[in-house]
């Protein structure tokens, strides 16, 4: 339709290729999903991801408004831009889903995750672990003569970096909450 002078929209990809990671670059997006706090709502969200073959990289959920029966699911997902758009549309049509926000697209957001790290060791390694923990501003929440449990809050990459450093120093157990995120400003 050259006369109309608008860009053609036909995708060059087959439906079977839409999720091919080689076809387009995968992006990581943080989504905030406000849901009615009713039984099974988390199963609906997770079932959507498994049923349609989408990725969940991290997921946290908790009630945020007790009187309003509202919970907030924060999830990190990855996919091509077309898949991310489809994920948002599919989430939006789940009946008890009230709002879907793509924090990655909608502007700057703060993202925080909490991790608990159990590091076991003696002597120099133990001293080094404590020294690195101070650099990262991690708190010691439990201590025995042969172990520490550190609590660290930060971005997922900060937690990754801390875990890497602790591994040779005796990291034995690690628990992470997944990302909680809010848009910046009002």
């Amino acid at each position, binding site marked *: *339709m050259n006369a109309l002078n608008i860009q*053609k929209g036909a995708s060059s*990809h087959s439906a079977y290729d839409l999720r091919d990671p080689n076809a387009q670059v995968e992006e990581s997006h943080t989504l905030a999903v406000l849901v009615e706090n009713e039984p099974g709502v988390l199963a609906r969200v997770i079932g959507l991801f498994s*049923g349609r073959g989408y990725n969940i990289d991290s997921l946290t959920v908790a009630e945020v408004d007790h009187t309003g029966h509202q919970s907030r699911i924060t999830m990190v997902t990855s996919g091509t831009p077309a898949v991310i758009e489809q994920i948002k549309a599919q989430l939006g049509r789940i009946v008890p889903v009230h709002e879907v926000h793509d924090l990655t697209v909608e502007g700057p957001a703060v993202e925080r995750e909490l991790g608990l790290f159990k590091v076991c060791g003696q002597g120099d390694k133990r001293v080094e672990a404590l020294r690195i923990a101070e650099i990262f501003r991690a708190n010691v929440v439990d201590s025995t003569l042969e172990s520490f449990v550190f609590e660290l809050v930060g971005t997922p990459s900060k937690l990754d970096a801390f875990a890497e450093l602790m591994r040779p120093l005796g990291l034995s157990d690690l628990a992470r909450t997944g990302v909680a995120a809010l848009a910046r400003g009002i």
Partner: protein
Amino acid sequence: MSRIMTGARMVIEALRDQGVDTVFGYPGGAVLPIYDELFQQNDITHVLVRHEQGAVHMAEGYARSTGKPGVVLVTSGPGATNAVTGLTDALMDSIPLVVLSGQVPTFLIGTDGFQEADTVGITRPCTKHNWLVKDTADLSATIHKAFHVATSGRPGPVLIDIPKDVQFAEDAYQGPKQIDPPRYQPVRKGSVTAITRLVELIEQAERPILYTGGGVVNSGPGASQLLRELADATGIPVTSTLMGLGAYPASGKNWIGMLGMHGLYEANLAMHGCDLMINIGARFDDRITGRIAEFSPDSVKAHIDIDPSSINKVIHVDIPIIGDVGHVLEDLLKIWKSRGRKVNTAALGKWWEQIEGWKSKNCLFYRNSDTIIKPQFALQRLEALTKGRDRYVATEVGQHQMWAAQFLHFDEPNRWMTSGGLGTMGYGLPASIGVQMAHPEALVINVAGDASWLMNMQEMGTAVQFRLPVKQFILNNERLGMVRQWQQLLHGERYSQSWSDSLPDFVKLAEAFGCKGAQVQDPKDLDDAIQQMIDYDGPFILDVLVEKHENCFPMIPSGKPHNEMLLGDAETQGAIQGAGAALV
């Protein structure tokens, strides 16, 4: 003033308040209190089915032919799991259903009780939404909400799981007007900016096409009227998916036939060659698009759909319009008229010339026979002998379904019941029963294949019990015809398990059920047999012995674009020459 009653009574009360006149169901331990209440009232007719899958398909037939939600009542455990195929079918085809299932008492949930199943868990992916009601106080509001969810936005099936103790306990009943307005309120009006943009394109387009789908039918009779007005006023050709047949009349001057894998040559070529594609309530299903990379390569695409997740799911569109088809078409017509009712008349004339060229290919041509009934011929005779009657048609799934879509013509919406998205063999017989319940005086025909029909044949008992004169028109090729066709074309003619051995004698089967049957195998006797079926005052099985190896054409093989259709007998006609011939 609150009315205190048992949960079981609330179910009946709520159904009555929602205007329900018919329930399809099957009793069992976990729904006995509700069946006890059904027994003590006369407003709601209960249709006793023979298998719960049949109940759901009947409700689908009822819903599709009336536009009202279909209602199903089943017991816990196997009752609910038997409903799963029907729920999935209704979800794929956007049919509004409210399914009520019994559940073991709340204090037994989780103990693997007798006939316990995690019904809300099992049906979560195959319903639009579902609820487990654990407190009688919530029951009436949940039922009203369920009707709202099933019928608002993109329609679909919902399920309410009701434990037996909740049915026995008493609480206050709430009417539909007493409950809080549901939070679920999908957008109905489309963006005026987007609609105006589409109108600008309609004014200039040289080769536009209206690609319509089940969304037009679901939007209600008003939407079909507006579609007719739009097509007739602009002169744009109309094609439709399997689900949308009847929204634009087959006798209409702009009708170019069904599109898709077994669609008409002219419809598919017009889709391939158009410069403006206006998708109205269809979803770019893979049976429609064929090979995505070569799907209508030179067109600007607009998509009107009430479900935002349908937009850009498969095909990237240039002008998405999220809204109800009826509302959007009304605004579109208003804007187009206010801008002076413009179209590119000269270009449209050329476009129609091209389409007429493709039409002259006569893609539905088949070689008829004096000795064997061709399935296409059987349907042509059925069409001729039932034309002009108050007729509803259901189908099973397979070759017969595609031939029915090609050779039967529908001038009104809600007259064509078929399993499109899920392709459920065994859909047609129960669906025809559901239709006949809603339209007792109408002529209701199920066009079936022998293999599909056997899948839910127990429902003939339901038809006989309720004196429903459904006509079972079985095109019997003693094969799983579509499977056989694919094996012939794609698997080196190795016909693995696609032969129906040990078929029953359908005439004796009819007699065993207490209805009437006949068999016909000579083309000369076909008209009389069809007339006998129509005239018989009761359910009738007509066993039409047809050519066993007939293939369904035209056909777009999987993974091929629209312009690489297989034409079958039409290809060897030779007499046809035209611009389109080069494209075959």
